[in-house]
C-alpha cells in the first residue's frame, strides 16, 4: 500500500468524523477528561506526598526523637499537686552511655512563658537547648549568633529570638544587646533567627511545631534559673508540671542502624518508666510509611483515572457502534467496490484512533496546565469564599501539584490503547457485515 493511500485513509477518517462535529467533540471530551485526570490526579498526589516527605525529612532521617508526654489524668488522681513525669536527665545519661550507636543527644526543655521588653508583651515558648539544636532543627541565624558552647557551659543568661518574637518585641530597634524579661529573669539577646516554616504534626506523639514564637536559651541556664518545677498562670489558675526534659533528639551514627537503635531506646525507656509518659518518634519509619502511603496514593489515583478512561473508552465504543450501524449502506458500497474486510476494519479503527489521539493530545495539554489551573482555582476560591478556604486542611490549601513525568506518555498511551481496544469491536462488526445485506440497508 502506497503512502498516498495511507494518507487518504487518515484524511477519509477525519472527514467522516467531521460529518458529525458535535458527536466527535463529545467523544473526544470523554478521552480528554480521562487523560487530563490521570495527569492531574497523579500530579496532585505527588505534590501532597512530596510535601509530607519533606516535612519528615525536616526532622532528620538519622534522628530519633523522644518526647515527654503528660500521662492521662486518672494516673495521678488522688495526688495533690503536680507529679513528675517524662524524660529525666538520668534517661539522657543512660541512653547515651548504654547505646553505642547514638552519636549524640540533644536535650530540650520547653516552657510556655511571657516575654517582655518595655511595653511589648509576647506569649511564647521558652526553649532550653544546646548549640547543636539550631543545626538539627534547621534554624538559621539572621543576626548575631545562636547559643554557643561557652554560654552553655557558663549557664549564661542569654537568649536567641525567633524572627517573629524579635519583630513584635522590637518593632523599631535592633534587639541585639538588649535585655528582655521573662517573668523575674532577664536575658541578653545575642541572636535573631530567620523565619522558619512550621513542621507538621506527625502521629500522636509529635505535635506540629510552630517556631514563630520561640525564644532559645541554654538548657543549663534554664535548669539553673527555673528548675524542673514550672508553674504557669493560665486563665486565673495555676498549673504546674515537673519535667526534667521535654525532648531528646538522638542522632544515630549510621542510617541503617536507626531502626534497631530506636528499638533499644524504646526498651531502655520502658524499663524505667512505669507509666506511658514518653513517646518515641522515628522519622525514618515515618518516611518509609510516607513512601508506602505515596504508592497507595498513586495506585488509588491511578484507579480513579483508569475508571474515567474506561468511561471514555465506552463512549468511543458507543459512538462507533452507532456510526457503524448508520453507515451500513456505505460499508456495503465499499465492499461491493472492492474493499476487503480488513480495509473496512482499518477504516473504522482509524476513526477511533483519530478520536482517541486527539482526546489524548488535548488531555495531555490539559494535564500540563495543572499547576497554573490549581493556582487559579485557589485564587478564585480565596476571592469568593475565603472562609471556606481557611477551613480546608493545610495540605490542601498549600498543595503544589508536581507533574509526574511518566504520567504523560502513560496517559497518552492508555488513551490510544483504549481507542484501539474499544474501536476494534465496532470495526470488526462493520467488517463482518454481509455486503448484500449491507447494500439493502436503508
Amino acid at each position: 500500500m502506497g503512502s498516498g493511500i495511507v494518507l487518504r485513509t487518515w484524511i477519509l477518517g477525519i472527514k467522516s468524523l467531521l460529518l458529525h462535529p458535535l458527536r466527535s467533540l463529545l467523544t473526544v471530551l470523554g478521552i480528554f477528561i480521562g487523560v487530563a485526570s490521570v495527569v492531574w490526579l497523579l500530579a496532585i498526589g505527588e505534590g501532597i506526598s512530596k510535601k509530607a516527605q519533606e516535612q519528615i525529612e525536616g526532622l532528620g532521617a538519622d534522628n530519633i526523637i523522644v518526647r515527654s508526654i503528660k500521662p492521662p489524668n486518672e494516673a495521678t488522681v488522688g495526688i495533690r499537686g503536680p507529679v513528675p513525669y517524662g524524660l529525666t536527665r538520668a534517661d539522657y545519661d543512660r541512653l547515651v552511655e548504654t547505646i553505642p550507636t547514638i552519636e549524640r543527644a540533644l536535650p530540650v526543655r520547653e516552657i510556655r512563658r511571657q516575654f517582655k521588653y518595655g511595653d511589648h508583651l509576647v506569649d511564647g515558648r521558652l526553649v532550653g537547648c544546646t548549640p547543636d539544636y539550631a543545626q538539627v532543627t534547621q534554624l538559621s541565624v539572621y543576626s548575631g549568633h545562636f547559643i554557643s558552647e561557652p554560654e552553655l557551659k557558663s549557664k549564661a543568661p542569654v537568649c536567641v529570638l525567633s524572627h517573629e518574637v524579635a519583630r513584635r518585641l522590637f518593632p523599631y530597634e535592633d534587639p541585639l544587646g538588649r535585655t528582655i524579661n521573662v517573668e523575674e529573669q532577664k536575658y541578653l539577646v545575642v541572636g535573631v533567627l530567620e523565619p522558619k516554616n512550621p513542621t507538621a504534626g506527625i502521629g500522636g506523639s509529635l505535635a506540629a511545631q510552630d517556631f514563630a514564637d520561640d525564644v532559645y536559651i541554654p538548657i543549663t541556664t534554664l535548669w539553673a534559673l527555673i528548675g524542673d518545677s514550672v508553674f504557669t498562670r493560665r486563665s486565673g489558675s495555676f498549673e504546674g508540671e515537673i519535667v526534667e526534659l521535654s525532648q531528646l533528639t538522638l542522632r544515630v551514627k549510621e542510617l541503617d542502624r536507626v531502626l534497631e537503635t530506636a528499638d533499644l531506646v524504646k526498651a531502655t525507656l520502658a524499663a524505667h518508666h512505669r507509666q506511658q509518659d514518653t513517646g518515641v518518634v522515628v522519622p525514618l519509619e515515618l518516611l518509609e510509611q510516607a513512601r508506602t502511603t505515596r504508592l497507595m496514593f498513586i495506585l488509588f489515583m491511578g484507579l480513579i483515572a483508569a475508571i474515567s478512561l474506561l468511561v471514555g473508552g465506552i463512549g468511543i465504543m458507543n459512538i462507533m457502534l452507532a456510526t457503524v450501524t448508520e453507515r451500513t449502506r456505505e460499508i456495503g458500497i465499499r465492499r461491493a467496490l472492492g474493499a476487503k474486510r480488513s480495509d473496512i476494519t482499518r477504516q473504522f479503527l482509524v476513526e477511533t484512533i483519530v478520536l482517541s489521539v486527539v482526546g489524548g493530545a488535548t488531555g495531555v495539554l490539559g494535564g500540563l496546565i495543572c499547576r497554573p489551573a490549581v493556582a487559579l482555582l485557589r485564587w478564585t476560591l480565596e476571592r469568593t469564599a475565603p472562609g471556606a478556604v481557611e477551613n480546608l486542611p493545610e495540605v490542601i490549601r498549600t498543595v503544589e501539584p508536581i507533574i509526574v513525568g511518566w504520567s504523560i506518555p502513560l496517559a497518552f498511551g492508555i488513551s490510544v490503547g483504549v481507542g484501539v481496544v474499544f474501536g476494534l469491536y465496532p470495526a470488526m462488526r462493520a467488517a463482518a457485515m454481509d455486503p448484500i445485506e449491507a447494500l439493502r440497508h436503508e
Partner: protein
Amino acid sequence: MQLAARIQDLKKEYHLSGEVVRALRGVSLDVPEGDYVAIMGPSGSGKSTLLNLLGCLDRPTGGSYYLGPDDVARMSDDRLSEIRASRIGFVFQSYNLIQQLTVLENIEVPLYYQGRIDSRAQQRCRELAQLVGLGDRLRHRPAQLSGGQQQRAAIARSLVNDPRFILADEPTGNLDSVTTGEILALLDRLNRDFKTIIMVTHEDEVARHARRIVRLRDGLLQSDERMREV
C-alpha cells in the same frame, strides 16, 4: 470471440429455517466481450441471486463462473474483493454514492481499494466525469446532484477500473422517463465503444436497449433471445 464472463451450471441454495431454497438450479450463460445483456424475470425467479453471483458478492453452491481464465466460484472472500475491485463495474438502482465524498472522490473509490491512486489515475477520473457529462460537478457532493446526475457519477465510477463488464441493477428504476432515456443513451454509447454490459431490469422498454434478453423463471434459464449481434 473473447468471453467477458462464462457461467456453467451455476447453482445457489439457501437454508432458511431448515428448508432448502433453490434460488438457482443450474444456469449456464456465455457473455462475449462487447455484449449488452438484459436479465429479466418475475420476482423469485433467481434474478437477484444471479446478479449477486455475477457481481462476486456471493459464492455459488455449485457450478463454475469464469471471469477470464479463473474460476471465481471457489475464491476466498479477500480474493473476491480483489476481483470486484479490478474486474467488475457496479451500477445500482439507488446510485449508492458515498455521501461524504465528492463526485471525483466517489469515482476514485474502486482505485483506492486497488492501491492505485496517483496523478494519472486522478486524471482518468476527471476524464470519466467529463465523459458522463459531470465535468463541471467534480467537487459536488451527491446530495447536491439530481438523480440522473448521481447515476451518471455512478456509471463513471463503474468504468474507472476498466472492468470486464458493467453490472447494472435496475439502473433507471428510480428515474423519470426523460432521465431514464438519458442514462440508457449513455449506456448505449458505452456499449458501442465496446463496453460489455449486464443489466437486470423488469421493464421491457429498458430491456429493448440490450442486444440480448435473458429470461429466468424458477431458478432456470427460460429463454435467451438475441436481437442484435455484437
